[in-house]
């Protein structure tokens, strides 16, 4: 329901953006040539994976500061929902996905302009309640019979990654729940309903007040790539490319790595 | 079993089965009346709409609490605010026939009647036997399995009566039991109801605004207006000597209040009627509309009570016409259609009215009757 609600919001945002860009229409600019900052204006609409919420908001502010006259609008949601919206014609400029599969759905439908670039990677950690009361040190601790563990469902990227990591470690684990996204898995830890959950390092870091993230070696076998692309039907291609360039720049990278992402 | 068998420790002779003083205050209305009903007696509470009849019935049933006064049935206080005595409806030994019967639509006629006995502790089988007996007495044996919506008005009325009687109530309450029926059914049902009420050993209170129901069904009439008893007595007394305009209209009499001195009764400031007998002091003068004769011109003959009048309304009344007249006194007169045609009666027409002194009935007015008749 939350997701449905969010997508509706995204839809409204998109509509609002259409209305706005209709007024300030700036379609005359030619596609940019790498260093795009001069001549960029209007609004950039970025559809980004929910796990990018904090870091992309910061990057957006930086980008607006560096390019006066540009406004960045975000729609944060699950990557698959965003991919569906884009393929159904949502007027977005940029798509940043938390998984290559969702990006593939967009590019396969012919909605990407050029090849997607992997801009960060994310890795799983074991999220446990603050202070690690059960003394969890690795995946095998989660297989104890009375341990309650939340995983993401296999259909979503964090679940797929968890499965890969568990398979790589040959650990058999029976979770009590397969959550619909990483934030939901994390909140089960926060609320104390489960003893541990496999989540992204970035998510654990964002929730550092309530949870600890325990690194485990097998996560190296399940690293998640985050690709980004300018969309073919982007209403403001120039600014879109400029934004992507900014994400890939050193300024952008440092924001992302400080949030717990790894450079590709 | 309780109420089925309890019912009657026969009250000592002279003690009424129901002794009630009902006081209920509402915004702009006060009910304040005293009721006494003996075992086997049927009392009709008769009055115009809004007189408080239904409120009185509801207090007896425990559906509306008293503000003051008391309800004592077979020696037990059911409601007495002074001492905080209160018996809830379901524990009162009563039976109620509601105006539109309120038969439970989801139950058959039989189960409607068995409902009360069942609640009073009989098992399903026994309760149905009792109910079946009552339906037989009502002549409804073939209709026992029908739902209320499949019953005619008269049948539903009898089922409702059977349902109320099936718990052997010490006090049977009937709220306008015939009002929902058409004229023809009413006639039959009234006769039958009279039979059943006469057979009921407990006290019976019948609330109605129909004088005919009251006269046929009741042993005694209590007439209420504005929440107060204005007259009570048997049918003969009330029809002969009405004490309010309402009662006079009910029994079809012209009624005036005045001050008698010998053979003259002074009515209002400047009108008097001559009467046959001698009377002194405050009196009522009553005479039937048929005693009023109408003339196009002032008659020369013997009648001493002659006054000019104007026609304000003409209605059919049985085989005759009832003429409403305005003048020094407002009266109704009955004339035959032939006479009416002869007189060419139309509204607004001036006439002369007369009434013979020997046709008038005169009886003293009690102080309490003041203000009830103009």
């Amino acid at each position, binding site marked *: *329901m939350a997701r449905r609600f969010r997508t509706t919001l995204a839809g409204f945002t998109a509509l609002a953006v259409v209305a706005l860009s209709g007024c300030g229409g700036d379609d005359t600019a030619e596609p940019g040539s790498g260093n795009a900052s001069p001549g960029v204006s209007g609004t950039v609409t970025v559809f980004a994976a929910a796990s990018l919420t904090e870091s992309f908001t910061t990057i957006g502010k930086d980008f607006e500061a560096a390019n006066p006259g540009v406004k960045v609008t975000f729609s944060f949601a699950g990557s698959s929902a965003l991919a569906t919206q884009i393929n159904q014609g949502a007027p977005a400029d940029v798509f940043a996905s938390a998984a290559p599969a969702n990006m593939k759905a967009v590019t396969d439908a012919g909605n990407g302009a050029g090849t997607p670039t992997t801009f960060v990677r994310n890795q799983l950690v074991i999220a446990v309640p603050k202070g690690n009361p059960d003394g969890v040190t690795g995946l095998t601790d989660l297989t104890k019979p009375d341990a309650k563990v939340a995983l993401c469902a296999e259909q979503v990227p964090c679940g797929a990654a968890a499965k890969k990591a568990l398979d790589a470690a040959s650990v058999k684990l029976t979770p009590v729940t397969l959550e619909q996204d990483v934030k939901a898995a994390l909140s089960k830890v926060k609320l104390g309903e489960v003893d541990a959950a496999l989540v992204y390092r970035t998510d654990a870091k964002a929730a550092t007040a309530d949870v600890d993230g325990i690194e485990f070696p097998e996560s190296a076998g399940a690293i998640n790539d985050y690709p980004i692309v300018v969309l073919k039907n982007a209403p403001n291609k120039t600014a879109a490319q400029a934004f992507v360039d900014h994400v890939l720049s050193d300024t952008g990278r440092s924001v992302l790595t400080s949030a717990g992402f790894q450079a590709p | 079993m309780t109420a089925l068998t309890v019912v009657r420790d026969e009250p000592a002779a002279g003690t009424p089965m129901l002794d009630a003083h009902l006081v209920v205050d509402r915004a702009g209305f006060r009910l304040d009346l005293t009721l006494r009903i003996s075992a086997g007696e049927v009392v009709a509470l008769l009055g115009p709409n809004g007189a408080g009849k239904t409120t009185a019935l509801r207090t007896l049933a425990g559906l509306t609490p008293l503000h003051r006064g008391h309800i004592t049935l077979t020696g037990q206080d059911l409601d007495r605010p002074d001492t905080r005595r209160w018996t809830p409806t379901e524990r009162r030994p009563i039976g109620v026939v509601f105006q539109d019967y309120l038969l439970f639509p989801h139950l058959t006629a039989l189960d409607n009647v068995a409902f009360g006995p069942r609640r009073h502790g009989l098992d399903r089988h026994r309760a149905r036997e009792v109910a079946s007996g009552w339906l037989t007495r009502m002549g409804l044996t073939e209709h026992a399995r029908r739902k209320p919506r499949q019953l005619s008005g008269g049948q539903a009325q009898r089922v409702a009566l059977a349902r109320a009687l099936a718990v052997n109530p010490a006090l049977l309450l009937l709220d306008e039991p015939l009002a929902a029926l058409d004229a023809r059914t009413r006639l039959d049902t009234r006769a039958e109801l009279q039979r059943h009420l006469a057979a009921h050993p407990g006290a019976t209170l019948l609330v109605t605004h129909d004088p005919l129901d009251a006269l046929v069904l009741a042993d005694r009439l209590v007439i209420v207006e504005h929440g107060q008893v204005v007259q009570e007595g048997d049918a003969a007394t009330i029809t002969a000597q009405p004490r309010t305009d309402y009662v006079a209209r009910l029994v079809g009499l012209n009624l005036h209040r005045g001050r008698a001195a010998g053979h003259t009764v002074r009515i209002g400031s400047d009108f008097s009627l001559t009467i046959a007998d001698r009377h002194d002091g405050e009196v009522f003068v009553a005479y039937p509309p048929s005693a009023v004769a109408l003339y196009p011109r002032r008659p020369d003959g013997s009648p001493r009570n002659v006054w000019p009048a104007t026609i304000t309304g003409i209605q059919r009344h049985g085989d005759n016409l009832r003429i409403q007249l305005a003048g020094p006194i407002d009266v109704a007169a009955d004339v035959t259609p032939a006479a009416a045609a002869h007189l060419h009666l139309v509204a607004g027409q001036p006439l002369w009215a007369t009434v013979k002194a020997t046709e008038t009935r005169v009886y003293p007015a009690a102080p309490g009757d003041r203000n009830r008749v103009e």
Partner: protein
Amino acid sequence: MSLLDDAGAATRPEIGVSSHPRRRAGRVPLALLVPAALGLLFLVLPLVGLLVRTPWTTLPQRLTEPGVLTALGLSLQTATLATLLCLALGVPLAWLLARVEFPGRRLVRALVTVPLVLPPVVGGVALLLVFGRRGLLGEWLDASFGITLPFTTSGVVLAEAFVAMPFLIIAVEGALRGADTRYEEAAATLGASRWTTFTHVTLPLVAPGIAAGAVLCWARALGEFGATITFAGNFPGRTQTMPLAVYLALETDLEAAIVLSLILLVVSVAILASLRDRWITSP
């Protein structure tokens, strides 16, 4: 003719007879017909959208997938249990609201509708805060009786009941307020206590309203997603109901999601239609 100012009641009914039946049946005002048609379109078009995109050829194959039937069975089971729970608790509450004057009744009535206003996910979190492992009651339930509700089928029932109960209460309260209370008075004069009156008179009288409320309640429970996934989590065979399966299918496979939705839709409509026939044919 003016002699008789009262023409007599018998001659009057002709004038007062209500309109001809033909006129009543025809001529629906356009001002009602147009929005009604638009309303229907608005409700039906999304369904058409689903049908258009349905991959009919793979439908039988999807149905035989083991996870689908499990989720469907669990959905039907939990929605039914949730409805029973709502009936057991909601009908008495509706009765209280409709029949008993008590201070704060308006507030209680407003509180009852809270689950309607609350986003279901928030409802799920709220349930966790009460019945969860660290919850107000959950901790005590666990310690005293070893009962844990999150991540269990009971938890699904609880979450569905929480979200669906207002539908039942509002429908039943409406029916109770519409019912003629004089029947209850009549029952009292026949010696029925308030409880007997409730079970023998009130309930049968408002049975259609209760049935309508139960249907609404069941339908809402069947479609419940947010509170369920938040409170009971998602685990196939235990807490994964159809809406959860649909949602997760949506992540990877739009067509699968459509097929699952359609199955849920067809089954629920079939059940409701058969129940409805039953109620109408048996008096």
